[in-house]
């Protein structure tokens, strides 16, 4: 089998970044010289018969919330422009151990608290947001700048940009990928995971990031696949055109033999629980930085969230943590008789950059962050693994579907996602001209 050299892979990625990223804004740091040197090392190792692992010589982009030795972790904030990491985060150590070449760092919304990722545009339509907070990673993958990128997700920050940009985003089970060396937003809701063009690549990157090998590559056959499609009042906010795409997907799955029934979960309550947890944890995570450097340099929304977190009541925080056990039990019970739950990742397609509000399916107009986190945020309460994958287009923009699996059942969920991906036949890509 012909093996493309790491040098060639890195040059190809650097050329695309050079040609396109001036418009897309996916990267905040491109490590061209370092990546070329690492690629040369990987190629020399391969020539000498040493292959480190499944990502040997492959360029990977890292969200600028994650420490890479010798590189600034700015977390999207002017407050941290001198915050040079002394060592790799453990998850980056794992990437390097598997042979990956870190090609650069991707843009994040300020301190991962937001869904807009200002400075990054959507490769499908440059007047639209890429989503966030891992917007740079999703845009980089969608535009073909890299095939592998890392993200983090506290209320949907991997899945939202994946849905906006038409790529696969995987929020693994809570704790499956180490979050050390990743600037925290909320310790008990933060998840770290992969963004990639397809389920197989996302699974491969997850395998490296988690350090737990896949039990086997075989996709789940559709015939016995049992899916619970989420319905009910909390799904009323979904745009009818997005619902139609999910209807079409369900029809294809059923024709392939899958059994789909309708189920309900209290998504709004679970999303509320996440919000009551995130604010005080965020305030606590920022206490030292705020005390040392003051308010200057914080954006208005982030500072407001920190101040509200500082003044939140202990009973509000505890209510969120106490509801978690209840919601986990509901989700896990529902999955005892099903392989996955299915819902739209976000209720609408990627909003316009200039939009302050989003018109939802129930006629309400709400802030973009409230709208886009409404559905995915619930599963940061349960810690469940969730894959978002593109399944169709509305007005030329991708629609993401989310599959929710059992806690600890990451590979089982990825197999289901591979089967759904095959049924969806989504092959569209954004048209980009240098």
């Amino acid at each position, binding site marked *: 089998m012909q093996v493309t050299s790491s040098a060639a892979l890195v040059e190809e990625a650097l050329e695309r970044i050079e040609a396109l990223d001036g418009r897309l804004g996916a990267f905040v740091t491109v490590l061209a010289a370092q990546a070329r040197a690492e690629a040369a090392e990987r190629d020399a190792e391969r020539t000498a018969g040493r292959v480190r692992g499944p990502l040997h010589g492959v360029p990977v982009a890292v969200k600028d919330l994650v420490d890479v030795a010798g590189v600034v972790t700015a977390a999207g904030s002017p407050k941290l422009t001198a915050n040079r990491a002394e060592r790799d985060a453990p998850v980056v150590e794992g990437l390097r151990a598997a042979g990956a070449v870190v090609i650069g760092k991707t843009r994040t919304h300020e301190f991962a608290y937001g869904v807009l990722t200002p400075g990054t545009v959507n490769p499908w339509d440059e007047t639209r947001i890429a989503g966030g907070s891992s917007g740079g990673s999703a845009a980089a993958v969608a535009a073909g700048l890299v095939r592998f990128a890392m993200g983090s997700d506290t209320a949907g920050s991997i899945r939202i940009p994946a849905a906006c940009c038409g790529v696969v985003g995987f929020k693994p089970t809570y704790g499956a990928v180490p979050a050390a060396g990743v600037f925290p937003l909320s310790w008990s809701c933060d998840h770290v995971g992969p963004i990639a063009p397809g389920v197989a690549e996302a699974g491969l990157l997850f395998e490296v990031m988690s350090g737990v090998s896949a039990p086997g590559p075989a996709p789940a056959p559709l015939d016995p696949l049992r899916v619970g499609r989420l319905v009910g009042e909390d799904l009323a906010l979904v745009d009818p055109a997005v619902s139609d795409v999910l209807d079409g997907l369900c029809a294809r799955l059923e024709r392939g033999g899958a059994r789909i029934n309708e189920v309900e979960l209290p998504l709004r309550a679970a999303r509320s629980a996440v919000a009551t947890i995130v604010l005080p944890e965020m305030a606590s995570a920022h206490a030292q930085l705020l005390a040392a450097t003051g308010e200057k340099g914080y954006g208005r*929304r982030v500072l407001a969230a920190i101040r509200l977190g*500082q003044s939140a009541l202990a009973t509000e925080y505890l209510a969120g943590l106490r509801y978690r056990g209840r919601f*986990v039990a509901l989700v896990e019970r529902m999955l005892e008789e099903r392989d996955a739950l299915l819902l739209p990742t976000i209720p609408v397609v990627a909003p316009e950059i200039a939009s302050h509000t989003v018109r939802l399916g129930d006629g309400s107009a709400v802030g973009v962050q409230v709208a886009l986190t409404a559905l995915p945020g619930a599963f940061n309460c349960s810690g469940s693994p969730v894959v978002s994958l593109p399944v169709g287009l509305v007005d030329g923009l991708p629609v993401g579907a989310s599959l929710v699996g059992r806690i600890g059942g990451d590979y089982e969920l990825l197999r289901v996602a591979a089967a759904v991906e095959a049924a969806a036949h989504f092959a569209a890509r954004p048209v980009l001209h240098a």
Partner: protein
Amino acid sequence: MEITEALRARLAAVGMELPADARDREQMERDLSIHLARVAELDRAADLRPEDPPCTDPTRAAECR
């Protein structure tokens, strides 16, 4: 006005004052309104009982209960 007073009371309880900048204050008022609505939603839906302890790690929720 009610939300301004609610914000003022919360901030005062931890030794802070309303932001001097009107746009900062409006942002906090909007966010506090959302926060209070979510707290109410949680309160309404959760029906928490003494046997529902706090859980910081969802993968250990079964042990929490």
